[in-house]
Every structure is written in structure tokens, then in C-alpha cells.
């Protein structure tokens, strides 16, 4: 793995979430607990009687899926650029890296002519890039649940290799009848809400949202805009090469991704204070992730806090890695680790320091964000507190 020569900073954040459309609103919501899914009329098209989900803070019933995802993306991207506060015309090479697992897929429920318009799915990236700048290039990663994290990781790489001057990267997905019906059929939905790492967990709760980050290299970040949320220092990407939907029990490739990310960051296990888990709330995945964290950190576990945002926001599909990073950013900026919503009692087999129902006031210097996907891809991102940040929460 190549050692990073450049520091990559997050200098702008844009979010559309269940709790509101700013980092502070998102953070305040994360601190509340017991977020139970509500009835969502839109999900009736899945053909099920239980239509529960965790919708984002925007009208859910009125618009078509294409309009909804574009509106959500527009809001998140605009707010990221506004929060960043710079002038896009000062930058020649701008790239939007979008991660979305399902993107426009739900359009197939509403339009009969899509068999003759097979390119629709691939247009999400360029349509979102249009909200940034007409010259903005786009990359659209569609690697299921890790799409957002992979988009951010790739954005880091593009800046590191000096291929762009400014990268906006993140994840987006809307409540999807296609995903919801599939998970219903797989018996993977917990109607009591997602309960990551809880003894009585039964599965996921479907959520939605968008989180985008403005990424810059050190030079640009200092000269153009001094606000820095945190520094992205490493990422690791591996594949289980095992199964279409199942994670491999031994977690070896997850461990390798963690090692790769940490090696790239130049940090040690002892430098990590926080692990933001993928924590879907499914029985098997949480066991594998908990065991992997335990194996990786060993004696350094004592200094670490482990949290899981999906208890509060549900599984946001391709955006989940971006929301994981957003949780880490909030923890760094607010010097606090959010509780795990809906959590009551840890599963007996877990020997990791879960924060449980109580937030933990702690200075977070280094954070690891885990994301895993259908298809076997594991993406780990490591970020750290940027000393000298003038962020005011």
C-alpha cells in the first residue's frame, strides 16, 4: 500500500437525514434514543402489510423515486458546497463521486417504458454532477451498501494522485420498495427497529438519506478555507470472494482491510479511540463484525468506544458508509460518542466496548469507520482529529 503523501481534509458537509438537514441536527438526533420505524405509505408498493421505515426529513409521499433521489442529492450537495463556503470557479478540476446502491431502481415500479430506456440507471451520477458545476466530472459507484464509503475512499485516492483539485464525495439512497420487499422475503427486517449488537436483534430497519463531503488536499484547505472537520488518513478495500449476500465467518478480509487502512494512515491501533461499526442488527453480521473488531484491536480495545448509528437512522443502503463517516465527524467535533439507539443488552458473545445506551464524553483523536456490502466488498476508512480545526459545533 502506497504511503499517503497528502493530507486530505473534509472542509464541507452536506446532509439530508431523518433528523434534519445539517450536521448539528443529525448529531442532536443521534443523541436521542429508541428510534422506532414508522408507517411509510410509499412502501406499500412492496406488497407487504408492514410498511415500516425511517424516512428522511423531507416529504415522502408526494414525489416519484427519481424526483425524490435527485431532490435529496441536490439538497445534500448544495449544503455541502454552501458549508464549504469556497468559490467553485477557483477550481478547474472538480469531481463528484457518488455512491448509491440502488439509485434509480425504484423507477421501474412507476414507468412502463423503461425496458426501452435501459440507460436510465447510469444517469444518476451525471444528473447529480449537474448540481455542482457544468464542468464537474462524475463517478458513480453502485457497490451496494458500501457504495458511499467506497466513493469517499476513491475521492481520497483521486486527490492523493493529484487527478483533481476538489472532490465532492458521498452516498445517497432512498427508501426502496425493491430493497424493502427483498429484505422482507429474506426475513431480515426488524419491525421493532434496528438493534445493533443487542441480544434480541432481528435485522435491519430500512432508512434513507444522503451525506456528501467536500474533500481537499492540505494546501487548498489551508489557503482557501480554514474550516476543517477532520482529516481522512487511510482507507482499505478488500473482497471476501465468498458469497452473494453472506459475509465470510472468519472475517479475514475485513481484518486485512482494517490493516490496510491503518497502515495507510500511519497510525497505530492505540491511536484509534472510536469504531463506527456497520452494525446492521442482523444476527450473523453483528457476530462477525464484533469478533473481527476484537481480533484486530486485542489489548487496545480498552481505549476504544464502539458505536452503531443504524439503530437511530436505519440502514440507508449505499449511503450507510457516508453516514458512518458523518457519525465519526460528529464525534470528533463534539468530543462525544453517540449511544446505540434501541440497544438494551449486549449479546453474550460480544467482547467489544459497546457504548450501549449512554453517550460517552470523550475526545476522539482517531476513528475507524466500517462498511460491508452485499457482494463481499469491505471498505474501512480511518479519519483523525485535525489539530487546529476551528470547527464550532
Amino acid at each position: 500500500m502506497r504511503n499517503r503523501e497528502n493530507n486530505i481534509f473534509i472542509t464541507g458537509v452536506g446532509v439530508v437525514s431523518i433528523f434534519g438537514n445539517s450536521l448539528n441536527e443529525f448529531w442532536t438526533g443521534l443523541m436521542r434514543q429508541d428510534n422506532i420505524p414508522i408507517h411509510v405509505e410509499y412502501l406499500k408498493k412492496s406488497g407487504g402489510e408492514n410498511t415500516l421505515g425511517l424516512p428522511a426529513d423531507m416529504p415522502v409521499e408526494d414525489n416519484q423515486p427519481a424526483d425524490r433521489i435527485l431532490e435529496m442529492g441536490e439538497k445534500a450537495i448544495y449544503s455541502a458546497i454552501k458549508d464549504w463556503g469556497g468559490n467553485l470557479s477557483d477550481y478547474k478540476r472538480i469531481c463528484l463521486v457518488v455512491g448509491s446502491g440502488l439509485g434509480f431502481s425504484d423507477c421501474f415500479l412507476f414507468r412502463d417504458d423503461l425496458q426501452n430506456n435501459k440507460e436510465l440507471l447510469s444517469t444518476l451520477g451525471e444528473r447529480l454532477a449537474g448540481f455542482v458545476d457544468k464542468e464537474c466530472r462524475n463517478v458513480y459507484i453502485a457497490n451496494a451498501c458500501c457504495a458511499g464509503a467506497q466513493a469517499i475512499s476513491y475521492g481520497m485516492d483521486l486527490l492523493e494522485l493529484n487527478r483533481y483539485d476538489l472532490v465532492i464525495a458521498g452516498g445517497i439512497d432512498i427508501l426502496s420498495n425493491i430493497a424493502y420487499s427483498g429484505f422482507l422475503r429474506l426475513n431480515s427486517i426488524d419491525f421493532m427497529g434496528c438493534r445493533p449488537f443487542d441480544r434480541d436483534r432481528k435485522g435491519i430497519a430500512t432508512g434513507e438519506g444522503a451525506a456528501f463531503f467536500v474533500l481537499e488536499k492540505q494546501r487548498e484547505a489551508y489557503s482557501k478555507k480554514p474550516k476543517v472537520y477532520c482529516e481522512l488518513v487511510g482507507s482499505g478495500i478488500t473482497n471476501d470472494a465468498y458469497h452473494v449476500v453472506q459475509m465470510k465467518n472468519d472475517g479475514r478480509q475485513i481484518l486485512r482491510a482494517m490493516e490496510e487502512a491503518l497502515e495507510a494512515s500511519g497510525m497505530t491501533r492505540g491511536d484509534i479511540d472510536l469504531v463506527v461499526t456497520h452494525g446492521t442488527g442482523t444476527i450473523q453480521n453483528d457476530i462477525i463484525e464484533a469478533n473481527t473488531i476484537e481480533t484486530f484491536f486485542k489489548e487496545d480495545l480498552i481505549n476504544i468506544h464502539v458505536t452503531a448509528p443504524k439503530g437511530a437512522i436505519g440502514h440507508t443502503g449505499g449511503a450507510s458508509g457516508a453516514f458512518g463517516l458523518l457519525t465519526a465527524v460528529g464525534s470528533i467535533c463534539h468530543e462525544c460518542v453517540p449511544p446505540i439507539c434501541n440497544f438494551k443488552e449486549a449479546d453474550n458473545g460480544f467482547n467489544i466496548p459497546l457504548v450501549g445506551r449512554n453517550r460517552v464524553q470523550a475526545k476522539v483523536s482517531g476513528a475507524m469507520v466500517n462498511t460491508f456490502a452485499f457482494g463481499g466488498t469491505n471498505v474501512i476508512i480511518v479519519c483523525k482529529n485535525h489539530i487546529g480545526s476551528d470547527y464550532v459545533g
Partner: protein
Amino acid sequence: MLDRVYIISTKYINEEMLKKTSLKHRDSRVMDVLSKKALLLAREIFSEEVSKKIKSERQGIVIASDTGPCTSLWEHTNILQTVGFKGINPSKFPNTMLSTVLSRVSTEFNLKGPSTAMYVNSNRSEALEYAVVQILMGRSDLMAVMFIGEGENGFGILIMSQKFLLETQAKVRFYINCSNQHVYIFEERKKIYETSINFA
């Protein structure tokens, strides 16, 4: 910094080849047309001897599609509208995601390096660039880039790092120069192709 990657091979499949070849796979009953096409193309690409000399952890793949799994989405939504979720075959539900195509290929060829599935449209260079970046970042020595869609031909490129080329002394005809924020493809010393990457 290593700034070159090398093209080991390019492979191509068309509809006629697909019709003639029956895919032997334990899951072929539940696979959609995109996965089958990808597997057939991957079998062509990874028939190269050099790919067997590289550790599985150092091999990665990029699946790039302009259509995605349209037919599977169409079938899934038709079932939802006529029968409801109970009519969904849980083994076929993953076919609605592009990552399933990726998983089929990575599992069969044990590719444990960086992998992704992405949508591309008129400019397909993003997928090639993703693979090149993974090699330049040192995550991988061998990357397969596969362009597949429904109702069209499939095309795949196998690229390799400079480091591994030196180790294996493999013979290559084309290389990609990635310096100066551009991607050029060379045949020996003659530039034959130039992408529009980063010309914003």
C-alpha cells in the same frame, strides 16, 4: 512513483458467443443474463496464465455497466405489482443489484483485492481510471475491468502493475501512462489512444 500500468489482454464477447456457450455453474438457475455474461467474459479474461501467478489478495475487479440489471429489476417489480413481496424468489432478489455481478466474478476467481461495481454511460474511462488508481495506490497488482450491459457486447481489459511486470517478465504490447493527470494508452512508443479523463 510508478506511473504506468500495462495491458495484458483484452477480451470480447458478443451475443452470438453467448448463445453458443452454455454456462456451467451451480447457481446458473438463479443467475440473470448480466451475471452470466460477466462470468463468461471473466473466464476469457482470467484464462491468462499471468493471472495465476499473482496472489488473490492482489487481484481486483471493476464491473462497469451502462444498463445495470434491467431485466432483473423489471421482473422484480412486475412480481411486486402482481403478487406482492411473497412472490419474490429470495435467491433472485440480489440480482437487482450490480454488486451481485461483482460477487459472482470475484467468488469464482477468488479475487480478494479492491473491487467495485459502477455505472458508466457515454464515457467509460471512469472504470479504467478506477482500476489504474487502485494499482497506483498500491492496493493491487492486477485489475480486470469489465464493461457489460444488457443487449450489447461485453468487453474486458486486464491490467497489471509495473512492479509485477518486472517480476514476471511478462510480454506486453500496450501500456497506459498515467502521469500528468491524463491517461494515455501506448503501443510500444506510439500513442494510440487518449482518454478525456481530467480535461475539465
